């Protein structure tokens, strides 16, 4: 019974699994080709689905004739929107009345509202046959004039995207903080600028996939999908299907990247569920890349009209902006992207006067949805661009002007005018460190050398902020009828009767390494190695714990997920120690767990976890009298959130990780093509569970952000056709297009989380914004400025031509 291992408490503390660069446990299956992705699921008697889609941006569906399509060999069934919606209730939206009438079934009924909108579900014996049938589906449309920009959609007399609501401006609110008139009256300079945030998407490499198997005996739908927020979406899907959420068995296996976009495949789940029930066969739908680009979800697209008031010494006195958001055709999560400015509206700065006038406008384009740094990098863009222009106008160094405006670490926690409670950090240190890492002075000299050699060149800096997770009470500011508040996550930790340790959490990762991070946390608490902890992969609603907020989105794992796992592990540990204390005749406070053995400071023989587990499950008469059997704790962690302060203020995130980025950009004046010569970033995400994974996330943000700045743009033509609908035209960058990254971290623990961690996966957009600022730095000596977030070579070349007349 007694182990010969004895150890002292101080030594135990050196385990330190939290904070270690521990190689990922999930890697092995992926590098050997054994990952299980949704498209790998193959069930007996399976049939295959293709989705017929509208070729028009706006049209009435006059008639759908299935006859020729049904005659194609291998076709099992064809179901139109009109047929399917008979079985459905509309999917929910957040909008207040009367705009809650915007109806969304994920499939068009009698009118199509964007090119690519589903109009029919085709089921066949093979995907090839389903596509053959799709070509034979006869559909008559009556074309309508499309609304293709926010600005035209907002005009009086514009055609309506949804004919049952009064205007295309489906949500509008003006948020005012402080005294803007006073701020602008006292301004030494005012920077006025129209800015354009371009439409792009994180485009995960794995497109959306849905597999549905309907079990008629129990009325159960088993859904395998690569939805990144299955537990959250389950309720909406059940409601639409007019069933109960507990009759939906939701499985998200390995997911090939999400980045927010994979919140948005739930409309396909309802379409396949209805079809699977009708044909009584399991169905699989695998989105093509083209379908993904035209009809999954896009990142937001914004026109800003903004002005910033600055004092002579470079202090921000106030910011006033109108923001016109092009939301696309349906309001699924929106207007959250438009509203999300509020999470950290004033970024890392101390200014108190702010006015944001927000318009959410529906158009005949692909719906907007969550996309890495959702609505947050856009606010960063607004603030950081104006501040940078202000610096140049005032003749101040861009780092210096930021230094003069930072919230200092001594002011933490700091409440911003919108009610956000910044949770610690050293903003000045971050920007200093990135400047030091890239040798700012040398970088400027390098820029000047490039300029002398005939290139355009610029150095750009930017701060970024990543507020997370979501306090759902923020919905109350969008729609006063909302009754939600807070957020939560669930986890369980179990030691079975043989001493095997398992853990599970509801976060449903998409490459984030949660199996590793969870194992590290549990190992730290239970005094074992991460190798001794089996963390359930992926997500299965019948085996994994969850809450209505579960999933990986809003950079929430290191806050909600980690805290839930930690909480459950701590309770298991407490129970282990109680039982051990009883067995060993020792006080709990003298005990610790080291290398899987409960040891006493008194150098007595220890008792193994295995033995405690045997007792807890199988030798129940020997347990302390009041102790329940087993070592199994299921814990729901409540992220400590409050209600809004008033109708426009509140703390809607718990942690505010931040970063400073610096870029040296070289532009070939002959072609307008930009190249990143150097890029650096320093991020503070508080205590890091696994610094290797943190660094990987930073690399990932850099890839996405630099890709968005230099390569990726979603462009529609004048008829509402997406011109960038494949990876031929949507220029996801290759390894040859991107530089290597100079990353760094500083660690100031979050004041508000149990482990001192901050959410960080999304990043705050700093590298993208730094690119735009660098381009301005390159153009300003020539008296020119840039207004966008996308460094289009064609646009840049046109600007250069006006400079050089060549």
């Amino acid at each position, binding site marked *: 019974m007694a182990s010969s291992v004895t150890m002292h408490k101080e030594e135990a503390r050196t385990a330190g699994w939290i904070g270690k660069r521990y190689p990922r446990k999930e890697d092995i299956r992926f590098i050997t*080709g054994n990952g299980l992705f949704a498209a790998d699921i193959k069930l007996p008697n399976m049939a295959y689905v293709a989705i017929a889609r509208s070729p028009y941006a706006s049209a009435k569906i006059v008639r759908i004739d299935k006859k020729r399509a049904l005659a194609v060999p291998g076709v099992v069934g064809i179901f139109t929107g009109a047929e399917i919606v008979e079985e459905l209730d509309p999917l929910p939206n957040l909008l207040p009345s009367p705009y809650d009438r915007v109806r969304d079934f994920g499939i068009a009924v009698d009118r199509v509202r964007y090119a690519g909108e589903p109009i029919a579900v085709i089921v066949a014996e093979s995907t090839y046959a389903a596509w053959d049938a799709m070509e034979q589906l006869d559909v008559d449309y009556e074309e309508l004039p499309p609304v293709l920009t926010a600005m035209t959609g907002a005009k009086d007399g514009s055609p309506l995207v949804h004919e049952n609501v009064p205007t295309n401006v489906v949500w509008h609110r003006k948020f005012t903080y402080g005294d803007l008139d006073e701020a602008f009256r006292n301004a030494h300079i005012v920077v006025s600028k129209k800015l354009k945030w371009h439409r792009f998407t994180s485009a995960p490499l794995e497109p959306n996939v849905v597999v549905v198997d309907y079990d008629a005996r129990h009325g159960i739908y088993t859904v395998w999908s690569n939805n990144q927020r299955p537990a959250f979406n389950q309720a909406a899907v059940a409601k639409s299907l007019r069933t109960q959420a507990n009759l939906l068995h939701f499985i998200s296996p390995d997911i090939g*990247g999400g980045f927010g976009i994979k919140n948005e495949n739930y409309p396909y789940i309802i379409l396949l569920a209805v079809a699977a029930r009708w044909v009584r066969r399991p169905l699989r739908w695998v989105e093509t890349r083209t379908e993904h680009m035209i009809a999954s979800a896009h990142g937001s697209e914004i026109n800003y009209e903004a002005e910033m008031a600055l004092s002579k010494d470079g202090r921000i006195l106030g910011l006033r902006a109108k923001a016109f958001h092009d939301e696309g055709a349906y309001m699924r999560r929106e207007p959250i992207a438009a509203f999300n400015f509020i999470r950290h509206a004033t970024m890392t700065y101390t200014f108190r006067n702010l006015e944001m006038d927000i318009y959410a406008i529906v158009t005949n384009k692909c719906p907007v949805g969550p996309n890495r740094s959702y609505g947050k990098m856009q606010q960063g863009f607004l603030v950081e661009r104006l501040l940078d222009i202000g610096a140049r106008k005032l003749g101040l160094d861009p780092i210096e002007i930021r230094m003069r405006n930072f919230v200092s670490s001594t002011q933490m926690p700091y409440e911003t005018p919108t009610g956000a409670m910044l949770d610690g950090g050293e903003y000045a240190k971050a920007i200093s460190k990135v400047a030091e890492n890239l040798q700012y002075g040398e970088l400027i000299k390098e820029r000047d050398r490039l300029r002398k050699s005939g290139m355009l060149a610029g150095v750009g800096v930017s701060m970024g902020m990543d507020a997370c997770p979501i306090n759902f009470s923020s919905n109350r500011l969008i729609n006063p009828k909302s009754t939600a508040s807070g957020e939560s996550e669930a986890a369980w930790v179990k030691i079975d009767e043989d001493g095997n340790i398992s853990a599970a959490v509801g976060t449903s990762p998409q490459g984030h390494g949660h199996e590793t991070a969870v194992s590290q946390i549990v190992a730290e608490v239970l005094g074992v190695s991460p190798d001794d902890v089996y963390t359930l992969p992926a997500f299965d609603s019948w085996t994994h714990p969850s809450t209505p907020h579960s999933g990986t989105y809003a950079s929430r794992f290191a806050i909600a997920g980690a805290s839930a796992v930690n909480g459950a592990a701590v309770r298991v540990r407490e129970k282990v120690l109680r039982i051990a204390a009883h067995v060993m005749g020792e006080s709990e406070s003298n005990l610790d767990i080291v290398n899987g053995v409960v040891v006493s400071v008194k150098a007595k023989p220890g008792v193994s976890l295995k033995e405690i587990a045997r007792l807890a499950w199988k030798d129940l008469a020997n347990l302390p009298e009041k102790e329940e059997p087993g070592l199994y704790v299921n814990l729901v962690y409540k992220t400590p959130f409050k209600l809004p302060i008033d109708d426009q203020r509140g703390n809607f995130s718990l942690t505010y990780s931040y970063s400073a980025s610096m870029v040296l950009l070289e532009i070939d004046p002959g072609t307008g093509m930009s190249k990143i010569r150097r890029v650096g970033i320093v991020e503070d995400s508080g205590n890091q569970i696994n610094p290797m994974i943190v660094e990987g996330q930073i690399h990932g943000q850099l890839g996405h952000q630099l890709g968005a700045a230099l390569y990726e743009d979603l462009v529609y033509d004048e008829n509402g056709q997406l011109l960038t609908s494949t990876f031929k035209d949507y220029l996801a960058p290759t*390894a040859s297009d991107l530089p290597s990254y100079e990353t760094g971290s500083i660690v100031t623990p979050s004041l508000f989380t149990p482990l001192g961690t901050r959410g960080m996966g999304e990043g705050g957009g700093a590298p993208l914004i730094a690119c735009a600022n660098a381009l301005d730095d390159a153009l300003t000596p020539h008296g020119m400025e840039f207004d966008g977030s996308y460094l289009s070579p064609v646009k840049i070349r046109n600007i250069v031509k006006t400079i050089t007349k060549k």
Partner: protein
Amino acid sequence: MTQIQLIVNGKKVEGNVEPRKLLIDFIREDLGLTGPHIGCDTSNCGACTILLNGRAAKSCTMFAVQADGMEILTIEGLATDGKLHPLQQAFHENHALQCGYCTPGMIMSSVDLLSRNPNPTEEEIRLGISGNLCRCTGYHNIVKAISSVAKSHIFVSPVKKEGRD
């Protein structure tokens, strides 16, 4: 339907396929080897990359009938005797994957690269994998992983000499 015969991961396999069936669909659906993936429609992403007679090929840009009589190596066949290939090991150690979707194709392209250029520069590594897109890692650690294998001279070609043109 057309009868085909090929060697996949060292084993003889047969198939009866529609001529239009893409090789990737034959590998994934008929052979059940789901390591190679599909990420695009336009031969850009390289997630479907396999070795065909020893050379990297996008299996989405071939009909299965074209591979008749040829030798294919997929990611599933790269580890030998239960031991990871040095590139697989390096991807793991260097955190060169996140979601893992591009990884099988990325590793197969890296095999082709190091087979023909054992000492690539960083630029050559980036060019060598430019037919493979990754959306998670920003490529930084992938380049590092490939470079680490090259620098420590532990690369072993999985392709038998006579298998190569």
